[in-house]
């Protein structure tokens, strides 16, 4: 089900996971998982705890390498590419436990995200060539734009640790967006958010998708997932047990079993 561009030509999937396996010591976290994320879609990764969702995310972002299998992003294989290099080619992520840059204010946190889109080095910083000043101005403008987009512009000069929790999550997303990604990987973005904030999150995620960025989110909040996801992949014990639209997943027997533990026979 590939998306099509304006002249009807099928767009290649932005992310392809092919038979990826990963073990830690004796524990097999992932065993031969495969799926594709089409360009410009929202893909959700769900499953019980320990299913391997975060491991999969970490493989894509480069925290460690897969034991076997391929991960292909925008046509090139990612194996061997360091984590920070992947950000430069368009893979951004947020963390389950928010890691703010506590010593900086909100705006500067987002500006860190602009790191890969700017070039000022040691010499440039000390000499302040005119190009540098311009680059800095543009980066600031973009950062403020993103804060506005996430609805937390008012807090731009607050210390990041002073933000209420919900706003910290939005800051994290703004920061990740600042890297100019093609795909944004979100690890439980709704965790800790109340109903109002979750609704706002859904709106924001749709707007991000609308701007052309693909999304892959790990989530436990089923309402959110069923609401915004185009396709859902269900993992259990490191293996993909179902993939499809929210409708299809909700009716899928093995998914129900995985979550509720009911015996397949006689369900």
């Amino acid at each position: 089900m590939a998306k099509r561009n304006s002249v009807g030509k099928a767009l290649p999937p932005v992310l392809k996971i092919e038979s990826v396996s990963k073990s830690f010591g004796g524990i097999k976290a992932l065993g031969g998982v495969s799926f594709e994320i089409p360009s410009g879609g929202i893909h959700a990764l769900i499953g019980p705890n320990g299913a391997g969702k975060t491991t999969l995310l970490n493989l894509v972002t480069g925290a460690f390498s897969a034991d076997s299998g391929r991960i292909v992003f925008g046509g090139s294989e990612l194996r061997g590419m360091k984590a920070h290099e992947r950000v430069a080619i368009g893979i951004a992520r947020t963390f389950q436990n928010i890691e703010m840059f506590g010593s900086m204010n909100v705006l500067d946190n987002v500006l860190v995200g602009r790191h890969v889109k700017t070039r000022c080095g040691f010499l440039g910083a000390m000499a302040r060539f005119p190009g540098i000043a311009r680059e800095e101005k543009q980066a600031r403008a973009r950062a403020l734009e993103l804060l506005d987009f996430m609805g937390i512009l008012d807090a731009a000069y607050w210390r990041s640790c002073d933000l209420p929790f919900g706003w910290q999550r939005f800051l994290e997303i703004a920061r990740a967006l600042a890297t100019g990604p093609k795909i944004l990987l979100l690890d439980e973005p709704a965790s800790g958010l109340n109903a109002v904030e979750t609704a706002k999150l859904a709106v924001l995620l749709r707007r991000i998708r609308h701007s052309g960025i693909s999304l892959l989110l790990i989530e436990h909040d089923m309402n959110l997932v069923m609401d915004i996801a185009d396709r859902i992949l269900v993992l259990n014990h490191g293996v993909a047990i179902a993939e499809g639209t929210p409708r299809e997943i909700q009716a899928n027997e093995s998914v129900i079993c995985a979550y509720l533990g009911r015996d397949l026979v006689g369900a």
Partner: protein
Amino acid sequence: MRYLIIIAAATAAGFGLSSPYLLQLITFIGINTLLALGLNMLMGYAGQISLGHAAFFGLGAYTTGVLTVHYHWSPWAALAAAIILTVIVAFLIALPLLQLSGFYLGMGTLGFGMIANVVFRQWSALTGGDSGLVGIPSLDLGPVSLSSSRNYLLLVWAVVTLFIFLCERLIDSRIGRALKAVHDSERAASSMGIDTGRLKVQIFVLSALMAAIAGFLYAHFVSFISPGTFDFIFSVRLVTMVVIGGMASIWGSLLGAAVLTLLPEALGFFAQYEMIVYGLVLIVIMIVLPQGLFRGIQDIYGQTKFSGQSPSAGSKD
């Protein structure tokens, strides 16, 4: 703006004071400030540690000493050589070490500092061994002789001012933000696309470079150097300077340097209790005020501005 204050103060001291002792003292404060500033960039901003920075100080001093005394190089050429050599050595040390965690980095830099000290002591053909190196010439800038205490004071403080200026610019830039990010959370910094390994090496090299320049200035000031100056105690002293001044901004380095240069002079009996004082200072500050190293060194002034501010108001200057 604030630089004018330093320049003014230094000039006033230089021309106003006539006691060679005081002039010398203020010059030493300057040299120590340069050292502390470099180490502050590494420890305070990037969140790393070096327990062997005396080695780079010594490397700068001995390189210029050896080249000017044994090979009769011009001091300024020797400076260039000292810088190049230090950059290479710092690079080689940092590359493997900075991948390790805090403890190992501490031990590694400690070990390196020890090795450097052994080299200074043992390579007597070049360094004069334990007896030291004598006869290091004074400097001159073209026609202007810098051998007088006053002129040397002005030189040192000109260099210090320059580096404070450059460091402030560095902190308030993309690189500065990246450094603070690495300090706050290396994992998150990496997820923002920052090559944390490379950045840490770069800042280590910068801080080593500044120590080497301080060494150069020191050597040509005192004209006699010996290995005893560049030992572990000195490295600890530098760390103490950074820790004391850590709470304020870059200017904290000046504070720390001033305190630890003046204290031994002010307290005659200090020499006996020097180590006890350093030890206690380090322990107490780490227990009571570790945020000096954690809060990313905000200007005390700036920080109070923040916390007093109501969240909905305000813009940054």
